[in-house]
């Protein structure tokens, strides 16, 4: 049997040839040192399933969920880092974290964690460090992420039992940064209507609804079988790089077939699962300004119900993308432009970061409003909010901006600020996140980002 997902990505070795002229694109391209092969071994799952063998148990009943909540262009560390550390009343929120006050008792804020990769690509190195923990690689004349992003690593671990292995969404016009590996993006859905139709449209069955099996589902699976045979046959005729692409395509077809098979089963009986209202309204830009906060709220509602209905257990939500030049309310230029060109203490950049944390407060408020067991959905998951840089003006990748909301079923300390005084490797946090959802990962990352073991200081 074939592995369900490609386990590693190898950049193709290419000949180095002499340069044609000093400045041509081709010449520079050829002169680049080729990235060394990066194999990303994905860890096996820890044996922590419930009796049914289907899901990591949280309070014996509910699966743990993971949400990557990403924004672009970083923060202002001086306004971000809380001045006191510890638990409960021992620490206080900083100015930029103040919008999260209502949920302080469900936050775990690690600061002082550094991305250890060489900072050679503005926005790119930090993105690689915080989401993949492997160096970027050269692909053609571009440099691309060298491995899967953390949401996909975790989906590999816990995404196999749901209708959707993972979902990707955005609150602005961006494809997002969820990747299976080099040149294989999972594009984010930006349209709330399309996202609603995908998650709660015709095929969605509420718990208790009449789930009569549609004969068309079986026919669609037969068609997919034929498609898979075509892909297999084609695979024997193509080169190494195309084989990786076809493997990814095949993975997508297999996932779709599995999804159709699950639609023939009764939906899980989950107390808080209801079909949400269809979004209404216009989510387009107004006078050139994206309605980021409104779009984030609408998408967060749908993400939350997708979790509550166990449609998926892994999400990646991109409020904005790296280098985003979105025009926020009451600002005189795009976000990225301001991070570089606003003078002084950068009051507009500060105001944008505060607005982004207001958005995050909206998201965790929505997750925390859904009861599950003795607590809420937020208690049974972890939302990992982060960005690709800290101080955007100089593309700093030290002291990365990170907030964890939700304890992941009691794994993370709550109402806690941990400050690393030694500039610990941020990859250790990515290891902690995997362990929090039940994976047995101990060693993770490659090159200078490689690390072993999680951040025990964050564990409850």
């Amino acid at each position, binding site marked *: 049997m074939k592995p369900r997902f490609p386990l590693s990505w190898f950049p193709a070795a290419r000949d180095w040839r002499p340069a044609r002229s000093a400045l041509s694109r081709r010449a520079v391209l050829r002169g680049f040192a080729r990235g060394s092969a990066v194999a990303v071994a994905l860890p096996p799952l820890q044996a922590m399933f419930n009796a049914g063998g289907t899901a990591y148990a949280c309070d014996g009943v509910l699966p743990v969920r993971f949400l990557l909540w990403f924004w672009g262009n970083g923060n202002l560390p001086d306004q971000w880092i809380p001045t006191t550390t510890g638990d409960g009343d021992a620490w206080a929120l900083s100015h930029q974290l103040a919008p999260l006050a209502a949920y302080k008792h469900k936050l775990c804020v690690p600061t002082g964690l550094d991305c250890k990769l060489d900072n*050679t690509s503005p926005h790119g190195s930090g993105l690689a460090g915080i989401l993949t923990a492997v160096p970027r690689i050269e692909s053609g004349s571009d440099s691309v992420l060298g491995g899967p992003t953390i949401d996909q690593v975790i989906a590999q671990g816990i995404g196999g039992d749901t209708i959707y292995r993972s979902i990707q969404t955005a609150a602005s016009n961006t494809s997002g940064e969820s990747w299976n590996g080099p040149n294989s993006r999972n594009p984010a859905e930006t349209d709330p209507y*399309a996202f609603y139709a995908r998650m709660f449209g015709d095929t969605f069955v509420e718990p208790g609804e009449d789930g009569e099996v549609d004969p068309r589902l079986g026919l669609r699976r037969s068609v997919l079988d*034929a498609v898979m045979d*075509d892909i297999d046959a084609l695979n024997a005729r193509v080169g190494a790089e195309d084989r990786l692409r076809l493997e990814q*395509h095949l993975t997508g077809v297999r996932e*779709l077939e599995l999804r159709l098979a699950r639609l023939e089963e009764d939906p899980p009986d989950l107390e808080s699962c209801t079909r949400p209202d269809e979004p209404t309204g216009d989510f387009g830009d107004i006078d050139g300004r994206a309605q980021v906060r409104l779009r984030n709220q609408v998408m967060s509602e749908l993400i939350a119900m997708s979790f509550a209905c166990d449609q998926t257990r892994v999400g990646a939500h991109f409020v904005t993308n790296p280098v985003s030049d979105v025009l926020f309310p009451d600002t005189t230029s795009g976000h990225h432009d301001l991070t570089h060109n606003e003078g002084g203490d950068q009051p507009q950049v500060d105001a944008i970061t505060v607005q982004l944390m207001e958005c995050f407060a909206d998201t965790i408020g929505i997750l925390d409003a859904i009861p599950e067991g003795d607590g809420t959905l937020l208690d049974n998951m972890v939302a990992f909010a982060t960005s690709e840089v800290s101080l955007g003006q100089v593309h700093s990748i030290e002291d990365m901006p990170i907030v964890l909301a939700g304890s992941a079923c009691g794994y993370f300390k709550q109402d806690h600020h941990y400050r690393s005084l030694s500039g610990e490797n941020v990859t250790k946090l990515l290891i902690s996140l995997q362990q929090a959802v039940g994976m047995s990962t101990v060693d993770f990352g490659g090159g200078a980002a490689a690390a072993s073991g999680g951040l025990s200081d964050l564990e409850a």
Partner: protein
Amino acid sequence: MPPVRPPPWLLLALVVGSGCDDPSAENADPAESRGEAPVTTSPSPRLKRLTDPQYRRIISDVFSEDVQLPANLEADERVEGLFQVGAATTAISSYGVEKYEGAAYDIAEQVVDSPVLRAEWVPCDGSTLDEVCATDALDALGLHLWRRPLSDAELTVVTDLAVHAGETLGSFDAGLQYGIAALLMSPHFLYRVELGDGPDAPADGYDDWEMASRLSFFLWDTTPDATLLDDAAAGRLTDPDALADVVDRMLADPRTRDGVASLFSEMLHLDELDHLTKDPTVFTYMSDELGPSARTETLTVIDRHIFDDDAPYPALFTTRDTYVDRTLAALYDVPAPKPEGFGPIELPIDGARRGLLGQASFLALQAHAASTSVTRRGIFVREVLLCTVIPEPPANANTAIPEVDADARTMRERIAVHLEDPTCASCHQITDPIGLSFENFDGLGRYRLTENGVTIDASGELDGDAFDDAWEVGAVIARHHQLAPCLTETLLQYATGASTEHLDDSLLDWHTDGFVAADHRILWLLRDIALGPAFRGHSPVE
């Protein structure tokens, strides 16, 4: 890399390329002096995923423009600046598979439900589960959707799906939809499978069906039409003499105008005009229509330049002819040629605005939301028009431009620091001097004489070619020695989907020499590439 022996057809191609068996003067090869085509290492075959616009155009061409498609299919990705290279590089995502499945059933249902389309493709009334009818319908559809005949085994698979579904659902037509959807979800539809490994392919070359696909997507950005498929079936596309005639017929077809629009839209990033972000309190001429209008202007100017005037490529950067609607006329401060829609105008001879780089599609897109961007404009000229690579800035540098103060009121004064600091200067001296020459145009493309009360100095130099005023910059770019080689390189990448590192220098030089000798005529270059070695031959699969 191992040497590659010249494929047999190449020798024949040289005879055709010399034009010596064509007596008509206008078909004589003006580039005869460049000599024979080099023996090169052509790029290896790569699967190319259909782009979103190609998918839509195929469905419209094969079926009807009335067939409705979902608003979003798999998103296209630019690699090395081009979607065509991205289409040969990136993978189809799981969400993409899902979207393609939805689109396939949407299309299949509309085809079967449309009396006109059904009559065109389905040779029976569907009152019985007629297996022969299903076979015939899917055979005909398969040829057009897979761009080659289906093998017997392939046809059996899709027919069986249709018949089985018809039995399950109790309807021939309902069942046929599953056969059609299977064709549309197959990798043979979703990818351009041009691997050159078929039994009828020439050594190191592509077979007739693959050539039909390559030609059609390169020149028309859509699937082969019935005539081209007939040519393939008759073996005309692997016969060098016949191929030249086919290419000439295709170039004369109006669809080449669509293809050239796709090419320049990709190259100049015109798709991004749909998401133009501008602060309307800063730019009072900003409107929702501006981005799409700017795209129409640029594509129309290019279209008329190439197809109506057959004018040289560099003249696109100096022409005073353009094509505007009221939105653009207001921005450019010229009289609108028509009360509604677009019309041609000639820009004032004493104005600074001329050529493609005087258009909003460049000036507004390559700028910030509330200001100009000298660096972005400079990078565009360097990377897109001259194929110069600009290294990424050092990540830990503070790239802030000083704010306006009494000593530095214009952008030229403010960014002087970039050019004084050696860390910044290494790249910014490549981009900024050329970007500064557009400072007479604000971040939307409105002409201005001053910035913060100071007269703007638009003088500059490009690789030693100095100029005093904004209106001269187009001429300087037009005569830059990298302009023609860069277009050749871009077109070769667009045509083959290959990374530039897989294109041989000798091949680029050979095509460029011909292009220059042919007075920089783009139609000539398209023909030359379509008949050239990299388009027709390939290295082994690797």
